[in-house]
């Protein structure tokens, strides 16, 4: 009798543990899906987007719907997987869409040589807002549209400059 009792106790315990694990797993799945398909938060730091985003680090929300629908347009802030290092993600502004002609200063620090490039099909031209210290399409050329990960639309941190990031 004692053994049976013990068995049933153990069984209910195992069942409860399984239920809890299932709930956690479901929650993690939901988190993953919202993060990749709906919207996610990113910490952006560095001087390349200076007038728009701070050097010290802003937390921004990016939505992952419009780039799948092909609705990324001129002037949008986008998250782009860096072409030089696929593990990194960079935040830049779209300056040219496919077929556009883009004029840019090669090195605004030391010279004012201006060059013009045509963005090829299926690519976008991205640049940082701070032309002096930004590593962007002026160095690595136009990036394929498939590298765009999301569109940044809202800043949530620091709290005093919370708000939408428009053009």
């Amino acid at each position, binding site marked *: 009798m004692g053994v049976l009792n013990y068995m049933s106790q153990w069984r209910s315990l195992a069942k409860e543990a399984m239920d809890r694990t299932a709930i956690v*797993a*479901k929650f*993690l*799945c*939901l988190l*993953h*899906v919202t993060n*990749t*398909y709906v919207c996610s938060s990113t910490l952006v730091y560095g001087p390349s987007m200076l007038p728009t985003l701070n050097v010290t680090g802003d937390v921004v929300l990016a939505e992952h719907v419009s780039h799948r629908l092909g609705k990324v347009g001129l002037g949008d802030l986008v998250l782009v*997987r*860096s*072409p*030089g*290092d*696929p*593990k990194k993600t960079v935040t830049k502004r779209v300056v040219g869409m496919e077929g556009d002609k883009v004029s840019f200063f090669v090195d605004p620090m030391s010279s004012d040589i201006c060059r013009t490039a045509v963005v090829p099909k*299926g690519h976008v031209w991205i640049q940082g807002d701070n032309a002096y210290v930004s590593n962007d399409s002026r160095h*690595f050329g136009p*990036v*394929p*549209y*498939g*590298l765009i990960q999301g569109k940044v639309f809202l800043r949530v941190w620091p709290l005093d400059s919370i708000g939408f990031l428009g053009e």
Partner: protein
Amino acid sequence: MATRNVLWNYSKKIFTFGLIGLTASDSLASISVVRGASMSPTFNPSTSGFMGLRTDDCVLVEKTCLVKYKFSHGDVLPSNHKEKHIKRIIALPGDWIGIRHCSDVRRIPEGHCWVEGDNPSSSMDSNSFGPIPLGLVKGRVTHIVWPPQRIGAVEKRIPSDRGQAF
């Protein structure tokens, strides 16, 4: 009221199933269909199958390699150039590669790779659009899962005429 409850329960189940399925296909592995003859000896070997019916191969695409972006020569991978392609990695960052149909030799830039189809006569690959960023890579093809007589692993190899001669 009862039917509403049943419906609600069903939709809840479908939603959960969808969530788990999506997560698994994103982070572990997914299955996709190979179309076209650009990888011809490896996938879709005959253009017209039994009684004129074309059988497209289904392949298992493994996604865990995306965490570290570690690939090796001869891996087969689908990459996204707005639509998906399945190609074989011929060269990785820092390698030198000779371009087909002309005698140029170029270096693969950091974070890029050189991809080619196994069928040189009908393949749209790096010979026409240059090296592609590794960020576009969506996974690694490891197994053929359909049709049943062709189930098996996809071997890593580099075409003999594209050896690392440089």
